[in-house]
């Protein structure tokens, strides 16, 4: 399988990239790690006439910690997030999520920005980014704007990003000491993507759940926050019964997907099971 032919640009600045995007409009695709885009091009599900390779834009890569938050460049690879001491120390759920992605080769090439923009329903990042209430900073012809994670994922492979925009940074507030997070995943046996992945951030005071944030991917055609679980558990004691009752709501109001790997009922069940396991693990 080889892709159709295309014109290739490798801009070295963000402005240059944005200009190219504006010029070529719908014909163009941004290329980051290529680990989602190139496979779809090989299958000719995508046949962009123009490729704008943004990997030479140095500013878009790496993690820093200005004023109580992590700023993650969109081009930061899964592996960099998995192995960064800063990330491991400040927001370990990010490293954990990164480690659950594909294999070493994939993690070495794939970027967090590419994964978020691609918005594969079975991708791992969205659950965690949702649970962390991250802000996504994007740049476009009219300047910059910030999209909240909860507004970002819209439909299957569709986000709030406009065609002429580039995702530049992901901003994550560093959780307080009484907040812990975990990402649990059931792997789709063949591909290793998430059949279901659940990310939980639990803020507790003593035995009480002060706040819980639950992101779920793999279940519906778009990753979501399991708000039913969150409101059910908030303010309650973290008892096994309360956790189980709250986790029951992990797929409420959700249209679960069906494919050869799982039925909708099975996916909905996994959301509940993993929500329960994740919360219980953090509560123990």
């Amino acid at each position: 399988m080889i892709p159709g032919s295309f014109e290739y640009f490798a801009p070295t600045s963000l402005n240059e990239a944005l200009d190219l995007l504006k010029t070529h409009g719908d014909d163009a695709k941004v290329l980051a790690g290529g680990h989602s885009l190139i496979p779809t091009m090989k299958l000719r599900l995508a046949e962009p006439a123009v490729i704008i390779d943004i990997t030479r834009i140095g500013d878009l890569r790496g993690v820093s910690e200005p004023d109580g938050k992590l700023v993650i460049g969109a081009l930061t690879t899964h592996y960099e997030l998995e192995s960064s001491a800063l990330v491991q120390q400040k927001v370990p759920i990010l490293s954990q999520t990164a480690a659950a992605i594909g294999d070493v080769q994939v993690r070495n090439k794939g970027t967090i920005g590419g994964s978020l923009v691609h918005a594969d329903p079975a991708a791992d990042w969205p659950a965690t980014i949702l649970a962390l209430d991250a802000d996504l900073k994007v740049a476009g012809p009219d300047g910059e704007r910030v999209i909240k994670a909860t507004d970002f994922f819209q439909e299957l492979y569709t986000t709030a990003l406009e065609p002429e925009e580039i995702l530049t940074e992901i901003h994550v507030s560093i959780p307080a000491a009484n907040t812990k997070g975990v990402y649990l995943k059931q792997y789709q046996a063949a591909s290793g993507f998430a059949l279901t992945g659940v990310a939980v951030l639990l803020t507790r005071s003593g035995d009480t759940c002060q706040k819980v944030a639950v992101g779920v991917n793999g279940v519906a055609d778009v990753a979501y926050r399991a708000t039913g679980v969150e409101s059910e558990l908030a303010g309650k004691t973290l008892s096994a019964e309360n956790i189980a009752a709250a986790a029951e709501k992990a797929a409420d109001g959700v249209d679960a997907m069906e494919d050869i790997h799982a039925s909708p009922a099975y996916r909905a069940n996994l959301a509940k099971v993993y929500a329960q396991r994740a919360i219980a693990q953090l509560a123990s």
Partner: protein
Amino acid sequence: MASWGEARDSRLIGQRIPRLSGADKVTGKAKYTFDVNQPGMLYGRILGSPVTHAEITAINLSEAEALPGVKAAIPLIEPGKRVRYQGQEIAAVAAETDDIAKDAIRLIRFDYEELPYVVDVEEAMTEDAPQLHEDRPGNQSKPGIDERGDIEAGFAEAAKVVEATYHAPVQTHVSLETHGHVAAWDGDNLTVWASTQAVFGTRRDLAQHFNLPEDKVRVITEHMGGGFGSKFGPGVEGRAAAELARKAEAPVKLMVTRKDEHLVSGNRPSMTQHVRAGATKDGRLIAYDLRGYGTGGISGGAGFTGPYVYHVPNVRTEKFAVSINAGNARAMRAPGHPQGAFGMDSLMDELAEQLGMDALEFRRINSDSQPRRNEIRQTEYTLGAREIGWHRRNKVPGAGRGVKKRGIGMGCGQWGGGGGKGTQARVTIHADGTVEAVTGTQDLGTGIRTVIAIIVAEELGLRPQDITVKIGDSAPGLASGGSGGSQTIGSVTPVIKTAAIAAKQKLFEHIAPQWGVEPEALRAASGKLYLASDRTKTISWKEATGHLGMETISEGGYWDEELRIGDVAGVQFAEVEVDTETGVVKPIKIVAVQDCGMVVNRLTTESQINGGVIMGLSYALLEDRVMDAQTGKMINPNMSDYKVAGTMEIPEIKAIALDTGRKVTGIGEPPTIPTAGAIANAVYNAIGVRIRELPITPDKVLSALAEKGKA
């Protein structure tokens, strides 16, 4: 009559000897067909049908041929003929690069009239299904019916009767090296590097196809990456490679794509069996009634076994094949057996439970009707039960506490594997001391190359690495059969052994007169010849062969059937852990006790057993060719949706290669037979709900648990 001698006298036979090609394989030095390159070589590609069922009305290759870099294009189907499944070959091209060939495939134009199709087995048997063969009304082959005893009288005697339906999916071979060839012509001499299980069979096929004398065709298979029954001839793709090479006047490499490998290169057919079986109060199987069918696709599917292994006096079976619009079945590692064994061993457990008997005890009572196998099997039961800890299994299935429940189950298998006549081999001793063993067999990865070296080295008192084994090439003209049916070792080694004996005898005849003794007084061991009556009288191997001067010893062998045996028994035990919230089944340990006749190389024998178990557990838990009834296409013709067990799915495997005598036997196939049944029974023992349909996916486990919860 030759013999392998006593085990205590063997220095090499039965030891753990690393395969001779191991280092080359792990360092990438070994050349598989895929790695073969020839000067000026072109790359071939096949266009497989994107439509499921159609009459081809015209094929136009001119656009493809006009693409710069394309050197030849050929049709593979005549207009007026039908394609009857997705992927069926329509045309092929050869081009300077693989990328150009891929582009050229897109430029092949063909017209067709689409025909109705059916890809679902049950639907294929309904009245208004499209009819796929003129001579198969209802898309069903004439049922094969087998009757013995008196089935009704049997059931009358039964104290307990179980009636159940078992189902297994279509499994594709997924050879790591896809089917493929490199074909090169020199005048009217054709050389083909082939990823094949049958060097000489491939030679014959190509010679006939091109109307050439066989000796004008040379087939080479130095290393190959798995066939499992799907690679017994050049196939459409091999003939296409040679035709393209002839047309383009340049060598052509044509490897089948992974997708086409799933679609057209064969499969293990599905199985559905409705069984009713009864046993007497004291636990004897007494009656067995089966109606079953299967499909491999456009052809194949009836050939599964049942009743299996166990002895039943009153039997009626009726089996037929169902045709659908999908790629056809081919032999696959123990054809018919794993699916039959899964049904039978599930049924055995169901009956045992009805009788209130221990499942192992029930098997002991009904074990094999064949005395040798029965005796071995009883030993295997004991060994395996001890190794898995049979006493630990849940007395009440599903009784374990907690979310993750463990269970233990077992299954059985039997196989032929005794080999046969038809192999030519030579053992040659040169004056410089080098030894060659030459025969036309091929090493599919089973380790036959190393086995041949071990046998010759044992006989000549040398080390395996002292023997140059030349196999996988038809050029020396020493024919051997295809490697199928686990027949290779039983066919090849008796001839190798007798050739080595004859060569050694010739060398002794050279040396004996110099020592003033009879040849019979000499022995060979540790790189020396010595006098049996006086071990201090020695001559080194090299010095001895030096006496040959300008001579060379080269001896053939014969197939001594006393050196091999068939009809082996195998038993496996599995322990699994089932997550009752997610339905995931995790194998914990599998014990495979395999009757191996005489183990020649314990290392590669265990490797074969491990491989069989892995393939069996993959069949039990993961693999399934999923067809889409709407489009008539396979949904998962890749590796990211069609899952084959990998490192992460493989539990501890305890391979017990049981020496059962001093005769060789083939065990490539038998260890894959009992695994699915053992796992299915272990799952039942863990959760108390029976899954009668493979693969046992998490989804099915949870649905079954939910059903049980409702009841």
